[in-house]
């Protein structure tokens, strides 16, 4: 299935709503890599990441009405729910130390990265990812770092201020400016609307 084929996606979702587990499997096979990559980035544990992604899929299986196709793409909804689930989990373990090096722990799992993933389900996501990364690369380093601490580590602004040693007002300003720039750049680079 091509992720940009929304008719086919809607059909699969309606099949899930009617209790067809094979349709859920097809959605899982299409999107589990993107969702697992995100969960692994946040949780740093392949087992925990897989559990988080599967929990989200199983909740969707039990209550498919949680996703409303009118509000956007399935992948966007899925990644949003996976992100929330992982951040909640991370915050529950808030006594764990936080690493500021975003790549540090990922290296341990580099064996899981696909050297040659199939293009069929991936090309649309790859194109979008290239655009987003390009936008992120254009942000000032500190703005990007603070946004990543918030988004991928689940730190609040106060926690970021404490962790980085920056004044809270600076943290607020940098995150706000960074996200504004990101929004403008993505619009300028024509990231598909409704993503």
């Amino acid at each position: 299935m091509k992720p940009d084929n929304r008719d086919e996606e809607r059909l699969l979702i309606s099949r899930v709503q009617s209790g067809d587990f094979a349709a859920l499997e097809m959605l899982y096979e299409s999107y589990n890599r993107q969702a697992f990559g995100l969960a692994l980035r946040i949780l740093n544990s392949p087992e925990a990441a897989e559990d988080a992604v599967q929990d989200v899929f199983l909740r969707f299986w039990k209550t498919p009405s949680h996703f409303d196709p009118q509000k956007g793409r399935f992948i966007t909804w899925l990644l949003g729910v996976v992100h929330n689930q992982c951040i909640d989990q991370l915050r529950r373990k808030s006594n764990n130390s936080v690493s500021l090096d975003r790549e540090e722990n990922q290296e341990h799992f580099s064996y899981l990265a696909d050297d040659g993933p199939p293009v069929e389900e991936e090309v649309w996501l790859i194109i979008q990812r290239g655009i987003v990364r390009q936008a992120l690369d254009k942000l000032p380093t500190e703005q990007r770092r603070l946004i990543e601490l918030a988004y991928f580590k689940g730190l609040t602004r106060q926690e970021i201020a404490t962790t980085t040693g920056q004044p809270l007002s600076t943290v607020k300003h940098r995150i706000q400016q960074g996200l504004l720039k990101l929004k403008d750049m993505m619009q300028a680079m024509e990231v598909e609307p409704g993503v």
Partner: protein
Amino acid sequence: MELDKMQELIVGYSLDILDEGELADAQKLVDSDPEAQAMLLEFQKVMGQLALSVTPMSPPSGSLERLRQKAGIAVVPALAPEPLPLRKPEPLPFPVQKARKPNPYRNWLAYAAALVLFMTSAIFGGLWLDTRNNLDQTARSKQDILAVLASSDMKVTSLKPANSNVGGTLRLYTDPAQDRAYVVSQNLTALPGDKEYEAWFVTNDNQVLKAGLLGQGGSRDPTVQALDTRGTVENFKAMVITIEKKGGVEKSEQQPVLVGEITS
């Protein structure tokens, strides 16, 4: 509330990084203010994009089986493996343009001859090799495209219409590290049968180099095509698209219909 303060709260709300007091303020704002609601929607889109920036990874093997087990779905035992039949290459999700070859089977005589040949055992070996070559070529195309798209040095250039008669989406992906370039086109205005889109690179010293033919447009599906980079991608500053006679020309005298500056 001042716009800046509202923006600060909405940014914090969409990232879920507010402290309790601020969270209550933001929630009140989102519940009551349409401007805040619209702003939240925009930042939530950015959040969705951030999730897409992460490299996809495969979960540990057996993931689908574990999902089935958790859902209480019975797993059908695998049948004894059978020898795999010779498979045709799987089609790509988008048309990748290939060099045009004359069709050798233009009439029924040719089909009949092909059938006879097909039934000749000596040909089986040739067919097998041909299929293997096609499979290898398909795999190579996939890898080439992925290598460029996934490259950290990749540049994306959106070409803009320079002519109101031509529309559609055309993005150029260049990878200076590998001197490779691809275009993804979609919904380009369909051209008459005797015309074709042709791509050209403009170098930093204003030379115009042929980059490849892009077909006649009209496809609703994205079409990915490799370009002839003819040198160092770093030296290219722009790409222009012209409409030429079918088969292309060595030197264009047409006005560009799509243009894009390759920014560093």
